[in-house]
């Protein structure tokens, strides 16, 4: 670990065990755990703002809480100044709690309504027993003034303040112990744009003045571009790309990063002429994430099997069908025929319907007979065989292996096979896929 690293996260994992309901237990049904964070590593340098972005539910806040040890991890380590925080004893933890602070998204629920602003900001000093009464007050006043509030507001209650002012109070409270590191979890998401800009500029100024290190969690990429030095992009519990902010925004490498950036509407006159391909469909469940590359079920660039040349769109549709057959075949039951129907024509009609729905046109290649066979199996309700048929014929590296992040130079890492100089080979048995590959 280099000396300019303040926080180092290594292979962090946090799986939440489901609380199985009584009925589940009775029926002996096990719900798989939610893989909220699954093998994430990154370093935060002293004095920088490190951004963590991704869509809701991808695991950003869980990472934040776990590296502050507000949650215990199920694997991995977090080092703060070279000490593994999960191995700290009580007194070490106590010191840690002074060095690291947190500011949450919602300035309305994170302030105790029964305390005055002065009491709220003073509370950390009381807890850690710092200074005399007079010194504490002096400190509180100085902090309030620094964040743009005034001394005469010290005896007022949170409800008397606007959202932006409350977030200033939260920031004052976080700063009063003179921490080194602040976790900012969506600190401006609940604020109006004009007020959001005030708070962002304040955070920027405070960082310079106090030499703070920030971990900035956000889903608004405009805000991230504005405030972060480096950024990590998350998808379904994993990091897909890390690098300096400008490079991530100007030259994104991971297909998910590209789709994410493309999806943001720009306040620009040319916006209506910009084509957005974006991503289709919803994020899969973190209880049952896709094998291989977790993004492969929605990736536009998902790599084709070596011996075929599909139109990329057809190939992508085929991947979608495979994923459906594997994870939710019952959703296909509306295309199936009655069990006792053996009429060839009816079967064929249903098979072409399913192909139409999934966007799989008739092809002039070896692939045609395989797809046709699978479609016939599917309409007869034989989903697992249909799945096997497709899987045996069309294996993509993106489903069979898990891309670990690789260094592509310039302080960047990307977890996508397209960025590998030489992609690893496809394992012989396609279903050895569940085994992870990211150390």
């Amino acid at each position, binding site marked *: 670990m280099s000396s300019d690293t303040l926080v180092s996260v290594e292979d962090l994992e946090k799986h939440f065990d489901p609380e199985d309901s009584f009925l589940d237990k009775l029926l002996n049904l096990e719900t798989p755990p939610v893989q909220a964070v699954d093998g994430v590593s990154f370093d935060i340098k002293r004095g920088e703002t490190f951004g963590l972005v991704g869509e809701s539910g991808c695991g950003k806040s869980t990472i934040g809480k776990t590296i502050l040890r507000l949650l215990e991890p199920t694997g991995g380590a977090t080092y703060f100044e070279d000490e593994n925080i999960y191995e700290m004893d009580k007194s070490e933890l106590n010191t840690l709690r002074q060095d690291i602070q947190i500011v949450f998204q919602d300035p309305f629920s994170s302030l105790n309504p029964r305390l005055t602003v002065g009491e709220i900001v003073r509370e950390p000093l009381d807890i850690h027993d710092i200074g005399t009464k007079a010194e504490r007050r002096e400190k509180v006043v100085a902090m309030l003034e620094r964040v743009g509030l005034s001394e005469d507001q010290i005896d007022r209650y949170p409800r008397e303040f606007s959202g932006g002012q409350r977030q200033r109070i939260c920031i004052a409270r976080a700063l009063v112990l003179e921490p080194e590191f602040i976790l900012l979890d969506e600190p401006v998401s609940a604020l109006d*744009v004009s007020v959001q*800009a005030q708070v962002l500029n304040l955070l920027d100024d405070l960082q310079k003045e106090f030499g703070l290190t920030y971990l900035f969690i956000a889903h608004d*990429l405009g805000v991230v571009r504005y405030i972060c030095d480096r950024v990590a992009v998350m998808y379904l519990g994993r990091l897909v790309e890390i690098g300096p902010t400008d490079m991530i925004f100007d030259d994104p490498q991971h297909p998910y990063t590209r789709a994410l950036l493309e999806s943001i509407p720009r306040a620009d006159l040319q916006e209506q002429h910009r084509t957005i391909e974006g991503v289709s469909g919803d994020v899969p469940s973190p209880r049952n994430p896709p094998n291989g590359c977790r993004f492969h079920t929605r990736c536009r660039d998902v790599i084709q099997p070596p011996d075929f040349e599909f139109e990329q769109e057809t190939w992508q549709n085929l991947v979608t069908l495979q994923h459906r057959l594997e994870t939710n075949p019952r959703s296909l039951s509306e295309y199936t025929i009655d069990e006792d129907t053996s009429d060839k024509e009816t079967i064929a009609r249903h098979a072409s319907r399913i192909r139409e729905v999934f966007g799989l046109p008739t092809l002039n290649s070896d692939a045609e007979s395989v797809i046709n066979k699978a479609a016939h199996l599917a309409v007869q309700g034989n989903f697992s065989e249909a799945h096997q048929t497709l899987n045996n014929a069309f294996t993509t590296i993106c489903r069979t292996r898990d891309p670990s992040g690789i260094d592509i130079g310039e302080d960047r890492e990307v977890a996508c096979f397209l960025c590998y100089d030489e992609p690893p080979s496809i394992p012989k048995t396609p279903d050895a896929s569940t085994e992870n590959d990211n150390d």
Partner: protein
Amino acid sequence: MTHNDASTTSVQRSAGTDNEPDFGPNTLLKVRNLSTRFFTDEGQVNAVESLDFEVKEGEVFGIVGESGSGKSVTGLSILDLIESPGRITDGEIWFRNRSLADEFNEQQSQAVRDEFVNLLELPESVHRSLRGNSFSMIFQDPMSSFDPTSTVGEQIAEAVEVQQRTSSNPRSARSRTQGYGFKSMVLGSILPSKSFVTEPSMERAIELLELVGIPDPKKRAQEYPHQFSGGMLQRAMIAQALAGEPDLLIADEPTTALDVTIQAQILSLLSDIQEERGMSVILITHNLGVVARVADRLGVMYAGEIAERGTLKEIFENHTHPYTAGLLGSIPEIDEAERLRPIPGNVPSLLDHEMGDRCYFADRCPKAMEECMEKPPEYEINDDHRVRCYLANREFDEDRSIRDHFDGEGGEPS
């Protein structure tokens, strides 16, 4: 400077508005001088203040502004969904609807001009019966807009039935169907009893679900709202709003609760449907990127008024109002990372006794001058562009600046 007597609230008519509405050939909706107030314990809230605007056929009119600027109340007023302690206190809402115009021409001629009816002068039951059929609304939070106890398919089928009953027998249906089904969509209130839904309307519901891009519509129709993701439920809400084939769709922050990738999907769905059907849309949002993506014209709302309005081009490139400039300067853009220029101070409360007679933006405006202590009228900059600010016809003059006056008032430093 403040005054509490509601009856003396000065109504500054915008330049060029006289008493007769004039309708362009493409006008669908014309709102004139609309005021909606809430009479709360803390005082009278002027949520919407003498608002004028027009929506043309087949266009997307964007309303942008920060929270509390009156955007949602504007939408709800058009649908007659303002509830106590709120009330529409003044104004006219003209809507093009030939058959209603014919129907009411004799009995209530003051409510009719050409093919237009003034919704606020029609009997309440008639106004309400237009919901879902002539205009429809979708909301930010789809979860609270669906009834959790019936399936998504049933709720959409119900909207289909309301529409069919109303259009096959407009008069008699009115009294029975007012707000029926729509009520659950609007308020999330649970219907008294489960309704019986016919097979054809269920089929139509499934078609609608397919139209809005929901995979396995047949199966999804049988599911309950909580089984849908946020994006899918927003699609379902759009399907429900389309059931009555409305002429005007009011979309209030339709993508604010969604992730950007899903937002992009929903926006392109909305604009495809809008183009296909030639429907008009009022798109309410705080996000300037969203209006840039889909709107044709827009109004920038501040403190219950439209501060500036015009085509996208006029507003983005040729804005006059310092609030518009401030809003554009506050958004962190993903294409560049310049230092933000925030607007100092806070969004106003809209409490009548705190509003005063001056320009509502004066306390935050970097260019406030002596004349701004009196409310500016709306100036026309050109056919496509109007603004409520003195800078429309004069330059900022440092010597007349009254910034010091407000900074001395204990305004929040930035």
